[in-house]
């Protein structure tokens, strides 16, 4: 089956700023994104777990966005402007999709 190369942007970011990151993805004109829960983790500040938590402040979320390579730089720039001062990071990988016009 014919496939087309795209970029998979994975943003792991603290819950309180998820809305802001998504707003920036919207503004960067990506075709969509999906949010996946992270339930525990460890970073420079030590480990955390979502278990039993009632507030969202300490929790991380993963945002997945498949986008065209042409848009990558614009997306990275606008997203990184938020991420850089918050708890979280961005990683990018290569993927192949079937319907290229979808992204």
């Amino acid at each position, binding site marked *: 089956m014919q496939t087309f190369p795209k970029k998979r942007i994975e943003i792991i970011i*603290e819950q309180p700023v998820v809305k*802001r990151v998504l707003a920036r993805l919207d503004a960067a004109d990506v075709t969509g994104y999906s949010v996946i829960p992270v339930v525990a983790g460890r970073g420079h500040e030590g480990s955390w777990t979502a*278990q*039993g*938590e*009632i507030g969202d402040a300490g929790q991380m979320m993963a945002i997945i966005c498949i986008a065209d390579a042409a848009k990558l730089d614009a997306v990275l720039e606008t997203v990184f402007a938020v991420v850089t001062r*918050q708890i979280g990071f961005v990683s990018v990988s290569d993927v192949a999709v079937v319907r290229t016009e979808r992204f």
Partner: protein
Amino acid sequence: MGVFDLALQNLLSPMVLFFVLGFGAAFARSDLTVPQSVAKLLAMYLLLSIGFRGGAEVAHHGLTAQLLTTIAAGIALSFFMPFIAFAILRAVTKLSVVDAAAVAAHYGSISAVTFAAVTGALTLLGTPYEGYLVAVAAAMETPAIFAALAIARRAGRGDSEGDAKPPGEFLREVALNGSIVILLGAFVIGALTGARGMTLLKPFIVDLFPGFLCLFLLDMGLVAGRGLEAGRRYLSAPVIGFALVMPLIGAALAAVLAKVIGLSPGGTAVFMTLAASASYIAVPAAMRLALPDANPTIALTLSLGVTFPFNLVIGIPLYISLASQIAR
């Protein structure tokens, strides 16, 4: 009842014991956990229950002029306590300006669960309190956030997105956070439906309250114990001292104001507890938005790991006992 008897009775209440159980289990590194969504259900239930009961009480006894005075006093406390807290923190600890401002915001604001705990203790003692204090609690949640921003801005630190973000948007996010909406909403519904609503909802809202509170405090014990473990490295003696003294300062200020306003003994105890309590839901999230450079672990460890247990075990009986003498 003397303060000692009160403290003992408090310590042996199922609520406090369940908290101790959770705290101990966390320290012993038991794998006991409460699922996050269950914890959120319990928190939502407590807010709904104390909100509705406060409203129903207001429907019964009517609103007095005291309401507005007490709300004003609460807002003032919430806004000015952070300045006191910040001054103390900068004087006795090594916290940076931003960290101290963020911690100060937590202590100016309030903890709804501590509120639930003091109302639980008062109900056990049969001591009534002004129902409208629910509205006061809601009003005290956010002024401290703006005080902390003012402090940080004076020192040249601010919002993560500078002028890119309209401040109105942040105001709305903070003022409409879920816990305020449910607390105030249930309060208004309680006030509107009064005795009729209360009859209908009593089995849920009143009868189950102690049980749900126990389950929730078990979870709070687990979370506080684990948080203390995780944030251990920030717990220098001066910092711990702050987390134990600041509630007393808040309670003392509230006691003076309560005396001036003329709150009942129960109401005075609740108002003192509100001032003494430190936020760990609304303020942490707001700080991540407004002061992202502040280390969130420090404030949370103090508020949840030190001050909450202190208030639950020692503070609440103390405030109730003092209030009964102040407000007579």
